[in-house]
């Protein structure tokens, strides 16, 4: 008797989007409440892990044809790049800049290089976690 994964797959689709949303939320919320690049990235990674468990790697990669190694590298590049970015402005390495802007509809918005930095962190986390799991799973 074959395994019928209908229940799991149906729920997983739903859950995946919940987690995804949560990941994005955590990423942006980190500034003022728990969360941030690491948490956001990790949660995002775990969402992908869920998909990989429920489906199979080939299926997911077809829908998501990304080289996660490069995602990780790009993330790290963003983080390190923020460090170098400060040099352009003559500031000390890794000096973060932030300011508040008033934007219609959204109210006061904070724009900060930390966000770029943390985006790097998040991407790196996602990239690495997925790279690790896929590398092992694809081993012959």
């Amino acid at each position, binding site marked *: 008797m074959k395994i019928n994964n209908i229940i799991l797959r149906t729920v997983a689709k739903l859950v995946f989007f919940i987690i995804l949303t949560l990941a994005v939320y*955590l990423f942006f919320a*980190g*500034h*003022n*409440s*728990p*969360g*941030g*690049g*690491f*948490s956001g990235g*990790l*949660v995002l*990674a*775990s969402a992908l*892990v869920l998909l990989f*468990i429920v489906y199979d790697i080939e299926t997911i990669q077809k829908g998501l044809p990304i080289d996660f*190694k490069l995602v*990780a*590298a790009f*993330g*790290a590049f963003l*983080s*390190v790049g*923020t*460090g170098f970015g400060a040099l352009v402005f003559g500031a000390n*390495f*890794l000096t*973060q800049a*932030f300011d*508040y802007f008033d934007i219609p509809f959204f109210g006061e918005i*904070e724009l*900060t290089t*930390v966000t770029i*930095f*943390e985006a*790097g*962190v998040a991407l*790196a*986390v996602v*990239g*690495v*976690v997925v*790279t*690790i*799991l896929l*590398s*092992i*799973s*694809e*081993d012959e």
Partner: protein
Amino acid sequence: MSTLVLAIFIPFLAAAIIPFLYKYIKNIHVGWFVILVPTGLFIYLASLIPDISGGEAIVQTINWIPSYGINITAYLDGLSLTLALLISGVGALVILYSIYYLSLKEPIGTFYTYLMLFMGAMLGVVMSDNMLVLYVFWELTSISSFLLIAFWYQRKRSREGAKKSLIITVSGGISMLVGFIMIGAMANTWSIREVIAEVASISDHALFIPALLLVLLGAFTKSAQFPFHIWLPDAMEAPTPVSAYLHSATMVKAGIYLVARFTPVFGGEAVWFWAVTGVGIFTLFWGSFNAVRQTDLKALLAYSTISQLGMIMSMFGMGSAALHLGYSDESMVYTGATFAALFHLVNHSTFKGALFMVVGVVDHSVGTRDIRRLGGLITLMPITFTIATIGSMSMAGLPPFNGFLSKEMFFISTLDITEASFFGLGTWGIIIPIVAWIASVFTFVYSTVFVVKTFLGPYKEEKLEHPAHEPKPGMLISPIVLGLLVIIFFFVPNVIGKNLITPAMSGIFPTFAAEGADLGTDIYAWHGFEPELFMTIGVVLFGALLFFSRKYWSGIYNLFPEKRSINVFYGFVLDQMEDKSTVITNKYMTRYLRDYMVYIFAFFILVVGGTFIYTEAYQFTLPENATISVFEWLIVLSMMATGITILFAQSRLTAIVLNSILGFGIAILFVLLRAPDLALTQTVIEAVTTVLFLVAYYFLPELEKENTSKKTKSINLFISIGVGVVFTAVALGVQGNRGFDTISGFFENSYELAGGNNMVNAILGDFRAFDTMLEVVVLLIAGIGIYTMIRVKAKKESDQIEDK
């Protein structure tokens, strides 16, 4: 301006150029170019004789490492000049000889490179005032000697000989270096002249005697003194010009030079006297005694060299007694020994150089040096025979050769020293002339053996590789010159005595010279019927007797069989060292991770725990704790139980489930400890880790029961508890000893400073963003690294070779 320093470096320069000369000049023997170096140096140095003999010393300095007072100071006084002339003079002759000795088929470029390296180093040794620079050159002589001994490195014996000489001489050198460092620390200078000037202030220092012994160790090893002499016979694997030059005329004299140089520092100490004299006298005897039984001509000469070096050494020892007394008429008597030592040093170079060259000639001619195969060469090689006879008779201390003069002076010194009433010489002093005399008898015997066995008796052509014949005339030039010098020095000894040795004496007895003492001695062949003459006559008579009755008493050598010799002992020590090191190292380097863990944890328990107890760090009172709610108790207890259960987990899945529980437990503790970000991250990481384990489990085997012995288990348990206890104890100690507020108040303004309300996030993203950035890199390395580890797999074939 710094011509003298330059003189030292010219041979090095030559050494650098020779390989190119050799490569590009094919038609002419490179030796002809090389010989210009020592010849030029000799002429230059000789031109300095008038200055030096006038009592001047030349000092020139080139800075090397001035910050540490390590400068190349060339210092030329009588002592240095004497040796420098020997080095360049004999050097020139040896090179001349080698041009005929070494065929063009040999890698002579390399040969002369080494030789020039040696010559420069040797000049450096005798002309350096700075102890450390002296050491630099000292080691260079050892190395060049090593290279020359192993010139025919394809032969195992060459390699062994080179190795032995290197180990012994370099070890001695290192010991000498430590001695120098001690002297430097005491006197606060590296300059030998300055040390000598300040010797009064350091002679009571606790390190004075250790330094003395260490320096002597260097001297003894280099000059092949008993029991370090064993390298010298093996060094005879070198080409004969090398033996003539390094291993009889010059390098082995470096140790003697060192003793002479440091006599003003250490002379007058009983330890110095007995060590130098005693070792020297015994070496004199031991060398001569063993020379007799040799069947290889070069080996015979090697032991002879050992013996002669011992003799010179002992004379320097006896001479040093003068410094014990200070400048007085009585002490001046003892300085005679030093004078004799210096004189014999020169003489030995002439006759021994000649003899080695003779052996080379014979070897070259008939293809063997074995005296059992030789004999009757007198008619076929008359010139060679003549030189051999001159050399041997000088060596045996017979007139009219220079060896006679210095041997007589030696006997006088041994007798004089028995008169002394200090250093326990009243009781033990008498041993010195007795041993000296016995050794001289053996010297006579082997000298006779050398000539008789080689040149007299029946000619056994069938045992030779080639029929005997005189060599090319060029090959004989150098031995003839040396042989002539042996005779010339006998007749006009005072030319050297006045111009070189007397100034050298001032260097050895500077305090005496300062007080205007006449340190020179007129050398006479005829002293009248004094005890020394009778001693010489006795030597000849007994020597002759022993020579002819050899087969009756040679059984005595069985008392000193090969298998109990120092040589064997040396081999045994090395073998044992290698074997035992393997055994010892294998014993603890088990290549078993568990043992490594035991080492780490045992270290942690013993050293950290030990310090904890030793420093009484356990004396603390715990600060007031936050109260513990029932929930917290339950969580902590559950975690403890979970942790302990992991130890008993039979399956890896159970283990990882338990680990997950621990992770959740940590997360809830983070919640209880007000760390939401941590709880968040911990939870996700824990789950991802679990997935990771499960993914990896696919490739891993199931847990098996650890069939460890009860004993191992209890050791493991003991260690584990120990680590836990130390860990906890120190943690509690730290809690009980908080001295400062943390710097965290700063971060409470995270909103104003970094625009974020979440302090932890502000720290990670801004205050300590550098950590975070690097952490991302760590992750990246792990991620890409894992990909790489899985992708890069060994090819099967190459694995087999490498995995042996």
